[in-house]
């Protein structure tokens, strides 16, 4: 803490006169009152890394729409005259074995990867919040049965379940999301359940019940909004996970199918030609890592901002 330098000239005689004692004046709150969310945003803004992450995501989002038009190429046209070209003025990120422009494909892949990641995470949140809120609010037998089901589904590794589902489902964007959310919601359900169990004995729940609010209203109007912090943090940290899962599945040939391009399929195609054309791997790999990094630092920043007690 550095003391601001006092300038003698700025002090005047009136500064030294006693203030009038006034009861009404003393009760006034001088600072602007900040809500929980304003306070959290203020803390979040101080976290440079998290802001950087936000900037990256906004940039990727914009480029996923503008990238293709900027390059002047589309993501699917083969051009056998320019296969496997290194990055140049013509093709900024080079071309792939079929002569497709990697710059255009990268931004198209961004659209697919971000869409899958955000969509899967949102569906996880919806199912998880409903499941967790019901289990946590009613407790007892309901809770036991619901969490038992979740536990059994959870005992099979997540990626294993997704792979098994993709074996039997017809391949496509929505089936991929379906497979990813099949057990993906459980984590969210557990977190919401824990929070709701803590909150359900609070006075405001009792007050709401006394006023005649039914269970639905208490759960989704009173309890869930109060767990929004952890929900948001989990949501943000689920997105990079979903993007990773999509890339992982596409790498195994179970994800997005041609002609659609995602970062995962691009990585997978590039790894087989790694020795000769490493640049083909570099671009999709770099953007997968950058996106996951961005969401991770945003999530960390949000956790610190929303729960200052947990901050280290």
């Amino acid at each position, binding site marked *: 803490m550095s003391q601001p330098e006092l300038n003698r000239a700025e002090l005047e005689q009136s500064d030294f006169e006693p203030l009038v004692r006034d009861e009404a004046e003393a009760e006034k709150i001088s600072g602007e009152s900040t809500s929980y969310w304003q306070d959290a945003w203020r803390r979040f803004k101080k976290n440079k890394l998290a802001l950087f992450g936000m900037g990256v995501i906004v940039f990727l989002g914009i480029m996923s729409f503008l990238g293709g038009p900027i390059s002047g190429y589309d993501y699917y046209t083969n051009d056998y005259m320019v296969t496997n070209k290194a990055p140049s003025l013509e093709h900024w990120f080079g071309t792939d074995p079929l002569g497709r422009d990697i710059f255009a494909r990268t931004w198209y892949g961004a659209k697919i990867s971000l869409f899958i990641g955000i969509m899967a995470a949102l569906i996880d949140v919806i199912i998880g919040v409903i499941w967790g809120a019901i289990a946590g609010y009613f407790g007892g037998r309901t809770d036991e049965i619901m969490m038992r089901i979740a536990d059994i589904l959870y005992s099979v590794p*997540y990626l*294993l379940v997704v792979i098994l589902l993709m074996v*039997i489902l017809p391949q496509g964007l929505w089936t991929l999301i379906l497979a990813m959310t099949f057990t993906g919601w459980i984590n969210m359900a557990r977190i919401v359940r824990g929070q709701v169990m803590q909150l359900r004995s609070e006075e405001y729940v009792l007050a709401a019940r006394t006023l005649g609010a039914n269970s639905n209203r208490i759960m989704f109007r009173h309890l869930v909004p109060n767990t929004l912090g952890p929900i948001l943090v989990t949501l943000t940290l689920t997105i990079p996970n979903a993007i990773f899962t999509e*890339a*992982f599945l596409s790498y*195994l040939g179970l994800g997005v199918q041609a002609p659609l391009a995602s970062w995962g399929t691009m990585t997978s195609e590039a*790894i087989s030609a790694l020795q000769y054309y490493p640049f083909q791997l570099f671009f999709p*790999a770099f953007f997968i890592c950058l996106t996951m990094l961005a969401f*991770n630092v945003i999530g960390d920043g949000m956790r610190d901002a929303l729960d200052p007690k947990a901050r280290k």
Partner: protein
Amino acid sequence: MGRYLIQRFGSMVVSLFFIVTITFILMQLAPGGPFASEKKIPPEIEQQMNEKYGLNDPLHIQYFNYLKDVAQWDFGPSFKYTGQSVNDIINRSFEYSLLLGLESIFLALSIGVFLGVIAALRHNTSVDYTAMVIAVLGISVPNFILAAALQYFFAMKLGVLPVARFDSFLHTILPAVALATTPMAFIARLMRSSMLDVLNSDYIKTAKAKGLNERVVTYRHALRNAIMPVVSYLGPLVVAILTGSFVIEEIFDIPGLGAEFVNSVTNRDYTVIMGTTVFFSALLLVSILLVDLLYTLIDPRIKFGKEGGKS
């Protein structure tokens, strides 16, 4: 303890039963018969093969037969590799995966704990920041991308380590590092925050006030308590290593069980898919049980079969 073990064993069997049932149903729903391939098989031969493998039986008979076989640890024949059973495949490939997995777990634990501890001890210094930057990067780089990058730089460019296969210790380094990095980063973050918690607790202040030297306080008092969250992370660690092996073994051409599983998925070799899934799940359930036992052994505050015990 005996009762607790029996109880745990019972719930393990129930979980396994559900897993076997679910995988059986899933594989029944899969498109195409087990012999579907590019080459058209004459209907007579297909009929005969169906007869031989019992595929003409009603579904519930097939299901009970499968349950009975699995209970005797017999996963049936592979449909794509004629003459080989799923057990053969598991027996042949599991040792590679086990070796790679153990090496990765060792790496993840030792480096992760080390990074977490020094980050906490040098809290808010450049050491702390460096360690945490490494951890965030480790979480953000997918294992298969790291594997490809390692392979490119250390094997293809520098030529200091073998590109692929699994013949000597040198061969194991790159895949083990690729597999270990993400869980290592998680462990480092876990370890750091729990170490910071512990270092602020009263008994550490007491120990310091008694005049014990820094090293004794850190390693004998703080570390032992701070390591508990890492012990409970061992279950997810095993999962991460296991699922990571699917791609890592593929990239490094290691004939392990992960690669076999991926192969069976691409070949639509349904019995192998089922067998390896059940095997993985059993392996996981056993390791989670072992972790829980370890937990109760390390921390005497936690009683067998009692939930919670949070400090």
